[in-house]
């Protein structure tokens, strides 16, 4: 089973992130994963423990306030280093904290006031509204709250987790950015035109801000809309699954019981077979995992029963212990088991075929058994010989062995053993 082994990879990851491995001394390492322009803000963010989005906003605000942000950005780039290949993954990443974000905000505010004193200033009408708007959106985008982040991650991989990334998805992305960027620029341009003008221009400054906001809306709007839509979809899904569970409980009580009753009654074999198939299908539907575990051995083995029962109307009991990915060896085992089960259903005359598959750490075992008429393995009729050979062939090609134990009047058991590759996850 997966219980024990499931814990191990997790532990491995933790030790990796804890490794105090940091390249190039204490220099700022530009971020590889978290990069919009040159990775400077990402690196600073990781270093300071602040969400990189906040750093970017800080640079942007300072850039508006007389262009000092650009200078700071280039300076930071000059003193930072590129991450070396894989080592960057091992650098400890400080969790973004509210305290550090606040500190950063105060530094920006202080710089702004300083710049205002010095005279590197576009005017109160422009810088303050933009600084406020930027701070506000930073709070929205940063979502440094871990719980929030976890919820968004759980909501599914299809979620656009990062708005910056989301920008570049889809063909219209670039056009949107161009139009949005143009609007932002023209908004700022309007603000520029007003610098130094009299107080009557305050209205124009507001227009500039409005245009900027529209531009930003164009850039990030689709992402926000998609997010809202997907949250609603998720909620609908939850309601659906609750309704389903209720219905499943009801069906479980009524229909499954009836199908069980039919199977115990002295009905004709066809009716019993029908009830059994129906039960299996209903059960599969009722108990279906929300995400079907594709490519798992357990599922593949369980599917054998349906196939054999459909073709020969002989019930097949399938028991699987453990589970494994459906690799080539597992596939060979499933195929061989199915062939053996079909063979038993066709020739043995037994009322039941039992299939047992176990996943052990170093091998896969499979047993297909019937209590039918059996045969002498040394004197097999040629038609059955072919089947036996094909089962053996499949298993041997994967380094395993197949034994057929049978004697006339005493049933048949096909025993299959296949080695598993070392280190294959269970």
């Amino acid at each position, binding site marked *: 089973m997966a219980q024990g082994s499931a814990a191990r990879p997790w532990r491995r990851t933790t030790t990796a992130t804890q490794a105090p491995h940091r390249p190039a001394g204490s220099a700022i390492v530009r971020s590889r994963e978290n990069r919009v322009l040159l990775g400077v803000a990402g690196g600073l963010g990781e270093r300071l423990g602040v969400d990189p989005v906040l750093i970017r906003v800080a640079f942007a605000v300072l850039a508006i306030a007389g262009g000092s942000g650009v200078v700071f950005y280039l300076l930071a780039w000059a003193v930072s280093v590129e991450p070396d290949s894989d080592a960057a993954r091992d650098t400890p990443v400080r969790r973004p904290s509210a305290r550090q974000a606040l500190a950063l905000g105060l530094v920006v505010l202080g710089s702004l006031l300083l710049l205002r004193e010095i005279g590197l200033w576009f005017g109160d009408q422009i810088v303050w509204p933009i600084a406020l708007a930027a701070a506000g959106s930073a709070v929205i985008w940063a979502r440094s709250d871990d719980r929030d982040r976890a919820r968004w991650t759980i909501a599914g991989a299809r979620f656009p987790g990062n708005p910056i990334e989301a920008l570049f998805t889809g063909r219209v992305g670039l056009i949107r950015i161009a139009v949005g960027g143009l609007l932002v620029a023209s908004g700022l341009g309007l603000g520029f035109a007003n610098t130094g003008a009299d107080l009557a221009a305050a209205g124009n400054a507001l227009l500039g801000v409005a245009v900027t906001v529209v531009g930003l809306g164009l850039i990030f709007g689709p992402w926000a809309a998609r997010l809202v839509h997907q949250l609603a979809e998720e909620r609908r899904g939850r309601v659906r699954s609750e309704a389903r569970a209720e219905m499943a409980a009801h069906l479980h009580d009524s229909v499954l019981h009836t199908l069980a009753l039919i199977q115990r009654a002295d009905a004709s074999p066809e009716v019993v077979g029908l009830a059994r198939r129906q039960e299996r299908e209903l059960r599969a539907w009722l108990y279906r995992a929300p995400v079907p575990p594709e490519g798992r051995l357990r599922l593949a083995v369980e599917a054998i029963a349906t196939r054999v029962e459909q073709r020969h109307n002989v019930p097949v009991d399938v*028991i699987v212990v453990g589970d494994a990915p459906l690799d080539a060896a597992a596939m060979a085992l499933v195929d061989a088991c199915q062939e053996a089960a079909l063979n038993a259903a066709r020739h043995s005359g037994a009322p039941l075929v*039992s299939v047992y598959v176990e996943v052990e750490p170093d091998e896969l075992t499979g047993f297909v058994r019937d209590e039918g008429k059996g045969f002498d393995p040394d004197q097999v009729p040629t038609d059955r010989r072919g089947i036996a050979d094909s089962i053996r062939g499949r298993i041997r090609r994967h380094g395993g062995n197949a034994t057929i134990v049978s004697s006339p009047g005493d049933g048949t058991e096909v025993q299959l053993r296949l080695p598993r590759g070392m280190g294959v996850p269970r």
Partner: protein
Amino acid sequence: MIRVFLVDDHHLFLSGLRAELGGEFEIVGEAGEVDAAVDGIRRTRPDVVLLDVHLPGGGGRAVLEAVRQTDQDIRFLALSVSDAAEDVIGVIRAGARGYVTKTISPPDLAAAIRRVHSDDAVFSPRLAGFVLDAFHGDLTGVVDPELDQLTTREREVLRHIARGFTYKEVARRLHLSVKTVETHVSSVLRKLQLSSRHELTRWASDRRLV
């Protein structure tokens, strides 16, 4: 004659059971929900209770827990259409001596009742598979090695049962006496009931179906 009490909320199924078992066993009472079942069982003191796992008012497990507080020597055989591991392991851990599915043939059911009555455990192939699955894997979290793992022999016996062999066939194939096979199975049942192996609970809830 073995005295049997039937607990099932499905009337059709109940009447079917009564008809099948009436000749061989003395049916001393029946009930369709938890409280009535507990009262009836305490009053009639049957040898064996056939207990449906799913019952209105708390499930078969509630019946087991209530009755076993006052009467330790009444034996329970769990019966269910559900193959849900959590339910099955739940009633076994609450004290049932075996588990069979409702599709079991009447002669097999009668044999199972007799087996439970003689204090042996009844392991269907499915239950054996569940137990192997639950005790599968590495031994992280083992508290009591005596209770928390199966011996090689027990594992071997269970594997044969899961492969569809009867106790008698298992004995013949492993060159044991039937009594020894029964002892192994009872020992597995005891471990299943007493083990604190945390995977057991986690395993069962991982396979929670409905």
